[in-house]
């Protein structure tokens, strides 16, 4: 019996090891190519050992496209998106998990149904909304802000929040308003002249906030929070917002981390949508900038590989250490506990 298992183990390793190396090869060669001169990349046999030209290639990449600026854009866009999306989806998920209200079933079914609807169906209207008729979009945002302020004021009044909580709420609202203006700045002049959101950070961030997987995932996690904890707080007279932020929220932190990582990664790697709404080199996100280089004939491939490395390696390192959270985010919605 032991011998048979040892043989099985041997055959298993014999089959899987070449496959694993094959799977790692593109990533290893990406690293190697990023450190070689052009003549090294296009030589036979394929070089397998890194060279010393990384900085030179980075300079080429900077000359071809201002890549470090686009990395900055990507960090900002993905960061703001992740933060906002976490707030929106966890609030919505909490509402679906913890309250009963008129229309809950219909709205939830509608949100979940979009999980199986191809993104292509909405991309054209989204584009028209953002790049062609942004005045409607702006009107809608202003309306949402006013409604949000009213809702906040209402809940502050009805829940008799402490003064600090009210101040906190208004401060958050003010920060959101300032951020809204600030993130639109790069093309604010453009904005008023043609009423387009093209080339703004908001153009990239806003449509993706309608992320239904996040709502589903957060709902599942809030459902797992023991009701007794929330009821106890309710009996103690805590407001609903306080229960949400101080009791429910800390309990789902690991889920938030998993979702946050996946949201950031998705935004970081997104290509089609930023390609559509960004056409100014300074506003490009990193994938858009790199994508424009791939199609060119006279271009530094060492530079492109440096770009690919800069986009990829931070996440490979994160993946090594936080694999648990990545996997939890990826399996979200797949496995019912």
């Amino acid at each position, binding site marked *: 019996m032991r011998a048979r298992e040892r043989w099985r183990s041997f055959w298993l390793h014999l089959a899987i090891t070449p496959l*694993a190396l094959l799977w790692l090869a593109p990533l290893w060669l990406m690293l190697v190519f990023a450190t070689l001169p052009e003549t090294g990349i296009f030589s036979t046999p*394929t070089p397998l050992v890194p060279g010393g030209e990384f900085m030179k290639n980075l300079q080429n990449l900077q000359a071809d496209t201002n890549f470090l600026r686009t990395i900055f854009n990507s960090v900002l866009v993905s960061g703001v998106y992740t933060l906002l999306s976490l707030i929106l989806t966890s609030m919505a998920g909490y*509402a679906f998990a913890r309250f009963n209200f008129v229309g809950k079933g219909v709205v939830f079914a509608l949100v979940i149904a979009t999980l199986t609807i191809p993104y292509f169906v909405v991309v054209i209207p989204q584009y028209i909304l953002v790049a062609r008729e942004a005045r409607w979009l702006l009107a809608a945002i202003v309306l949402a802000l006013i409604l949000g302020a009213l809702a906040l004021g209402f809940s502050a009044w009805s829940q008799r929040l402490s003064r600090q909580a009210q101040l906190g709420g208004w401060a958050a609202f003010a920060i959101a308003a300032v951020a809204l203006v600030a993130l639109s700045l790069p093309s604010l002049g453009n904005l008023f002249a043609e009423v387009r959101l093209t080339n703004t950070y908001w153009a990239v961030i806003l449509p993706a906030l309608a992320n239904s997987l996040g*709502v589903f995932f957060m709902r599942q996690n809030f459902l797992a929070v023991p009701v007794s904890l929330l009821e106890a707080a309710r009996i103690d007279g805590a407001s609903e917002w306080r229960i949400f932020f101080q009791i429910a929220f800390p309990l789902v932190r690991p889920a938030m981390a998993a979702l946050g990582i996946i949201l950031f990664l998705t935004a970081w790697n997104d290509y089609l949508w930023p390609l559509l709404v960004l056409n100014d080199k300074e506003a490009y996100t990193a994938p858009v900038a790199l994508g424009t280089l791939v199609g060119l004939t006279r271009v530094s491939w060492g530079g492109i590989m440096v770009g690919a490395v800069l986009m*990829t390696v931070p996440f490979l390192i994160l993946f090594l250490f936080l694999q648990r959270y990545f996997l939890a985010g990826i399996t979200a919605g797949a496995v019912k506990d």
Partner: protein
Amino acid sequence: MRQRNLIPYTFLLPYLAVFALFWAWPILSSLLTSFQNTRVVPNTWDFSANWGRLVQDPFFWEALRNTLFILLVQVPLMLALAVALAVALNSQLLKLKGFYRFAFFAPVVVGAVAYSAVFRLLFNTQSGAVNNLLASFSLPPIDWLYNPTAAMAVIVITITWRWTGYNAIIILAGLQSIPKELYEAANIDGASPWQQFWSITLPSIRPVLLFCLVLSIIGTLQLFTEPFLITNGGPGNATTTLGVYLYQQGFRSFNFGYASAIAYSVALLAAVFSLLQMRLFGRDS
């Protein structure tokens, strides 16, 4: 208590505002747009301008054929490989699990643009790594990016590299939720590993596999970045997918009406495939 009743809406409102604006309305809007002639100003209602053109458009049919080819060849291949990998990674006989997991799961964090650039380079005809490898076995070089069949193979290989690990992660999670007692009982009954796989493992992961299948099909129907960047839909239109064709019609020619019709045909295909799967595999789950 009346006040309490409004509270859930304040939690929902911010998300629902974005959802209504960027998903609910666009779903309806693009359906309407697909019935409009958007090549005249102002746009006019025309029920056959786009859908009529669609059925006669040879480029659409070629894009559809390419997409379905990838769907029918790549998806089953990838899922079979993903099941095998998941079983291997779940096996107690495997040493160095961390290394193998990293090798197969790492592509999950790599962006489509980054790996498309890398694969374009690897499949370079003159001295790409793949042709160099072929040469070391004394095999003739293949003109990967400029031969229709080979270009399609490159797309299939690239997607398989990126998504096999992703599906293996999901299947692995499914495997880990199978009760161990089932296997212990099977061992006592003297069932071989092969028999155990067919009668315990596969039936247990059927719901998870179905989930992977649905996601893969929707993903493949929307394939865009890889053919766009690696082969630019070529040579000719040999790797033009529905995604690439929609991009060309919608955002190169700015014919929103026609592009909306293409988008809705993708949605129709997704719906048909989903229904088909439910009928075939989803009976009791």
